[in-house]
């Protein structure tokens, strides 16, 4: 049985050529880029090249707009905490109900400990932001808006340019957690109003433990981590040279495969989604079909629970993930699906399939073959499943 990996929004396989690019920087070119000797100099040159590679993927105007971090979570924390320091006299944050915990836990903590006012903007049934509520929340006290570029669970893409423009009208900074978007959809920050953007290496076939915060030139910034001059004083600590170089190579590859992601990968996703809806009744797609990442499908199977589905899928060699409470250690189902008002009958049984450029047609064939008996087995065991009660028209997918 060939394993089928469809959990690329959780993490991706590090591309072998990324690893190859990183390897010399452990035992051979191990110098500290800050050192005044040849060992340091050769690393410095490689870091410069890597920065250019990432700059190209982001379409950033200047390479020094990139601040390397330990990952997406650190970048998110750095962005928000910096804005609260630089935006004197402003103590409100606007964010969405469907952000990653890297944002939601942080702002909840700031609300509790620093008396910051947080406006959490809701979404509709397809996960689209309530723009009216957003407009109303913006004001002279807004320090920063943080709205994700694309949602990790449903793939729904937010209109970040429009949101950034509105934020700037009130003098607020605009940050976006683009961890799921970078490498999957084209990005051109030179033509953008976005002030700060977070990204993570391991979501785009790069290594874990490296990420970056883009800070537009001219945006005032206060470091989260102090103690050295690295990253022009914006992020202290000896550079993670292998990580930065790996991320550079990953960025280069992502640009190369960008059209493949938009076409072939999107077609695989669509075939899986439509095949599942055809074969399995009482199931539907969550998220906004018109505006979402090319690689993500979130399918809710009613009257059964996600962890049980995943365990059976795992036995068939299929890796995916679920917004179910039971898989996360938390006891509530996904905050994203709850914010979208997905009914409890389905929220517990929602499965996220996330593709990458490494997936092939055979993967989709295997999943389409494996899923119907899995769903049937669990529904037979479920006290809520009554086939006769299911009106097929009631569950016509929102997406077909």
């Amino acid at each position: 049985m060939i394993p089928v990996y469809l959990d690329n929004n959780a993490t991706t396989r590090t591309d072998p050529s990324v690893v190859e690019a990183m390897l010399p920087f452990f035992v051979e070119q191990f110098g500290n880029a800050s050192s005044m000797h040849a060992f340091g100099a050769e690393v410095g040159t490689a870091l410069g090249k890597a920065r250019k590679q990432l700059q190209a993927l982001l379409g950033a105007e200047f390479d020094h707009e990139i601040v390397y971090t330990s990952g997406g979570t650190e970048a998110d924390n750095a962005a928000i905490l910096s804005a609260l320091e630089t935006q004197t006299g402003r103590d409100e944050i606007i964010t969405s109900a469907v952000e990653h915990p890297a944002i939601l836990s942080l702002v909840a903590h700031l609300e509790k400990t620093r008396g910051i006012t947080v406006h959490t903007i809701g979404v509709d049934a397809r996960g689209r932001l309530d723009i009216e509520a957003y407009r109303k929340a913006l004001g002279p006290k807004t320090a920063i808006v943080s709205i994700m570029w694309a949602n990790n669970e449903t793939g729904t893409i937010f209109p970040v340019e429009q949101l950034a423009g509105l934020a700037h009208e009130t003098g607020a900074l605009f940050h976006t957690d683009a961890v799921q978007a970078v490498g999957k959809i084209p990005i051109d920050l030179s033509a953008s109003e976005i002030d700060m953007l977070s990204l993570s290496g391991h979501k785009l076939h790069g290594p874990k433990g490296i990420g970056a915060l883009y800070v537009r030139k001219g945006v005032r910034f206060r470091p989260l981590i102090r103690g050295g001059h690295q990253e022009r004083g914006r992020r202290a600590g000896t550079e993670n040279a292998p990580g930065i170089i790996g991320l550079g190579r990953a960025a280069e590859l992502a640009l190369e495969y960008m059209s493949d992601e938009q076409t072939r990968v999107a077609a695989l996703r669509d075939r899986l989604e439509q095949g599942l809806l055809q074969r399995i009744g009482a199931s539907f797609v969550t998220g906004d079909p018109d505006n979402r990442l090319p690689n993500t499908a979130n399918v809710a199977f009613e009257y059964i629970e996600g962890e049980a589905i995943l365990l059976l899928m795992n036995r068939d060699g299929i890796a995916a993930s679920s917004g179910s409470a039971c898989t996360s250690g938390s006891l509530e189902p996904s905050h994203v699906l709850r914010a979208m008002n997905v009914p409890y009958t389905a929220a517990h049984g929602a499965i996220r399939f996330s593709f990458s450029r490494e997936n092939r047609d055979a993967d989709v064939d295997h999943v389409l073959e494996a899923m119907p008996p899995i769903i049937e087995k669990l529904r037979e065991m479920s006290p809520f499943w009554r086939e006769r009660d299911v009106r097929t028209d009631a569950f016509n997918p929102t997406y077909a």
Partner: protein
Amino acid sequence: MWEYTDKVKDYFFNPKNSGILEDASGVGDVGALSCGDALRLMIKVDEPTQTITDAKFQTFGCGSAIASSSALTELIIGKTIDEALELTNQDIADFLGGLPPEKMHCSVMGYEALHAAVANFRGETWVDDHEEGALICKCFGIDEGMIERTIRGNDLTSIEEITNYTKAGGGCSTCAESLEAVLERVNGEMVAEGTLAPEMAFSLTSYVRPVKKGKIVNLDEKKTPLTTLQKIRLIEETIEAIRPSLQRDGGDCELIDVDGNRVMVKLTGACVGCHLSSATIEGVQAKLVEAVGMPLIVIPVTQMH
């Protein structure tokens, strides 16, 4: 991923007694869709003997919820109602070789379902959670009665454990203070009743409490193979321990040599020619394998070198 025991996995992948039990004598429904797990237990009871002759379940929930439901049916079939009611949620977890702490509430759900089904069979109204004392956790609809029962039944002494066993506090966690109050009261009562050591009891005024000791796994001990000398010593000690019982029957056993996994012994006295000597050899072998922790073959030899 959760670390499920092989038995949990087996009972999830190949659940026994799942489905609908036609002409059930009692049905118990617990849990709800919104909570993420629900269990319907159906039992058939032989009236004259009050014995549960059959049981089936339907479960909406995760792997351990399904495994716990199936385990419950296996545990109660063949028992009288009174015997079945003595089962605790811990018995369900033990039957499965244990559950991850965060999943203990699955076993509690089984316990509740059994009581609900028996009440239904007896024509009583099952005292539902929501009617026993104040509703504490609004997210999952858990009341004080259920929390108190679970604290007592499982010697719980922390809020985290209460959440793991009952789910209470696992949602918005605004009930944390109420949970602390219940835990402090119940632990206090348990100390007074002598069922809980005073230093283990939860107290709002004391922040430092002894930590419940987990099982310490010594990885080295597991992995390092015995040296030949250690192995021979262990074999010697084990045989020395067996000898007295053989001597009582007028026999004896002497270690002659160890060669790899072959252990040469000489049976003497009454053992020689005894038609049970092969059984004795097998017994010695079993004891040695257990003590040394590796496969060994015991070979009886007749001559000394």
